[in-house]
């Protein structure tokens, strides 16, 4: 698949802080590409350089074959949702969409967009009266009003409750299904893992890793955990001999087995069945991107 964005050796400095230090990556057509990292990692700076809102100090950026620094043509082909968004407080939802539609050479049907984003009953509601989730929906609508080829979402779900966050994820998937490439930033590892086809992990302005969430989790050899409960009076079978198993911890009837590899869980289960041991309440715990970040940087993601 052709690439819609090519970033090579991007650098951006603010005063004495190197916000982005030599970042390179490409974004493929039609994927959901996530830039993940803790607050202050340089995600927003990087995405704003790509959107053409900031000028990079070094490196090259190509978006749909163009240099985003000269925005005139490219601005019609991309949609942008900013991290710090605002509209005039008294502007109504439908007015905002009609206004932004008028800025573009080609624009979507604004009424259809309002329906699609679930804002139908907020059509003539003032911006200042919308809830956080509704505001974000409006900003997504504004980002999509030009029917862009690439849409950028910067910290789309920050400040939203878990339910609103999940419905944002569905919206992002719909946008991609409609044929639009999505580039997003987030500091929620779970969001990146659930939503993104490929994830770029950034820390201190530099690339830590870039791959699919599954490959990132798999490549680390991070331990997986399998937990089960033994019935009363049944002793744990010896599992240390199973090749994928690293160690076994037992607390009363509760057994936790640690190991690595794709066949870890199935080999433990078949060992239990071979030993004819009944087990209850079996659960496997996959490592997450959170663990990947910890393993790669030696730090917890959470602030």
């Amino acid at each position, binding site marked *: 698949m052709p690439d819609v964005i090519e970033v090579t050796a991007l650098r951006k400095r603010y005063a004495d802080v190197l916000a982005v230090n030599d970042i390179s990556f490409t974004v493929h057509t039609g994927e959901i590409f996530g830039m993940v990292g803790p607050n202050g990692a340089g995600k927003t700076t990087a995405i704003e350089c790509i*959107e053409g*809102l900031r000028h990079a100090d070094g490196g090259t950026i190509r978006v749909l074959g163009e240099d985003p620094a000269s*925005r*005139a043509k490219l*601005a*019609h082909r991309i949609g*942008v949702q*900013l991290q*710090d*968004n*605002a*509209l*005039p407080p*008294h*502007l109504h939802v439908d*007015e905002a969409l*009609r*206004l*932004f539609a*008028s*800025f*573009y*050479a080609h624009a979507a049907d604004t009424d259809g967009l309002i329906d699609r984003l679930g804002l139908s009953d907020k059509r003539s509601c*003032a911006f200042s009266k919308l809830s956080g989730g509704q505001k974000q929906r409006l900003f997504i609508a*504004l980002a999509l009003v030009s029917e862009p080829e690439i849409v950028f979402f910067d910290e789309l779900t920050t400040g939203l409750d878990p339910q609103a966050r999940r419905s944002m994820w569905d919206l992002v998937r719909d946008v991609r299904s409609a044929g639009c490439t999505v580039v997003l930033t987030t500091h929620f590892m779970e969001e990146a893992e659930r939503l993104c086809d490929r994830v770029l992990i950034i820390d201190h302005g530099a690339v830590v890793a870039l791959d699919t969430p599954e490959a990132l989790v798999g490549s680390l050899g991070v331990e997986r955990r399998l937990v089960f409960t033994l019935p009363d009076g049944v002793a744990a079978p010896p599992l240390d001999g199973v090749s994928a198993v690293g160690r076994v911890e037992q607390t009363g009837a509760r057994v936790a087995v640690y190991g690595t590899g794709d066949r870890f869980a199935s080999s433990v289960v078949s060992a239990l069945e071979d030993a004819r041991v009944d087990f209850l309440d079996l659960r496997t715990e996959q490592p997450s991107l959170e663990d990947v970040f910890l393993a790669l940087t030696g730090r917890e993601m959470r602030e």
Partner: protein
Amino acid sequence: MRGFLQLTWTDIRLYFREPIGTFFTIAFPPLIVVLFGVIYGNDPMPLFGGRGSMDVSMPAYTAMVLGIVGFMSIPISISTYRESGVLRRFRSTPLKPVTFMLADVISNLLMMFVGVALLIAVGRILYHVAFDGNALIVAAAIVFSALAMFSIGYLIAAVAPTARAAQVIGMVIFYPMMFLSGATMPIEVLPESVQRVSAFLPLTYAVKLLKGLWFGASWTDFALEAAVLLGVLVVCTALAARFFRWE
């Protein structure tokens, strides 16, 4: 062009939804006429060459409306847009800065004309105020003077670090001008020393120009006033463009 028209139309609608701005631009000017009319009346007076106080004050009150929009509405609205991130949101679209500014200027001019029209209507109806000029020429002079005042407003918005600062700077500049430029009291009643201060206030030149044309003088009689206003317009526009920031 479509973007420009839509933005201008949106700006006008938003203006009416902001009660304080609407009050000062549209309701305040006719209120001033009623208030000062009650105080001074419009009997002919030798000080004003046989005209009444309200006759000579109409062009001055008109200049005051230009001042309200230029020194209060514009600095506050633009700097608030910047502070809250509205300008940034516009910047991430293909909208050109020039288009944004033109729509802002045009919508402010239109709102100002609504205020001026009400002001003149109330003056005509209540006090039968005199008008000896050419309406088109006076309208052109109002637009010209307004652009000069607006350019100061855009410069304030460009240099003020915050919206609050823009509001304070606008008021600090405007309040003395309101009383010393002849915009609310005829400059003739002020002591000579105060009149010398007036010479440094841009609004004074707008008051003089409008007053002259209002009573049938020609532009050539007010070349100095026109030149000062043009200078203000050119210099402040250039500086405002130079210091303008989106965020």
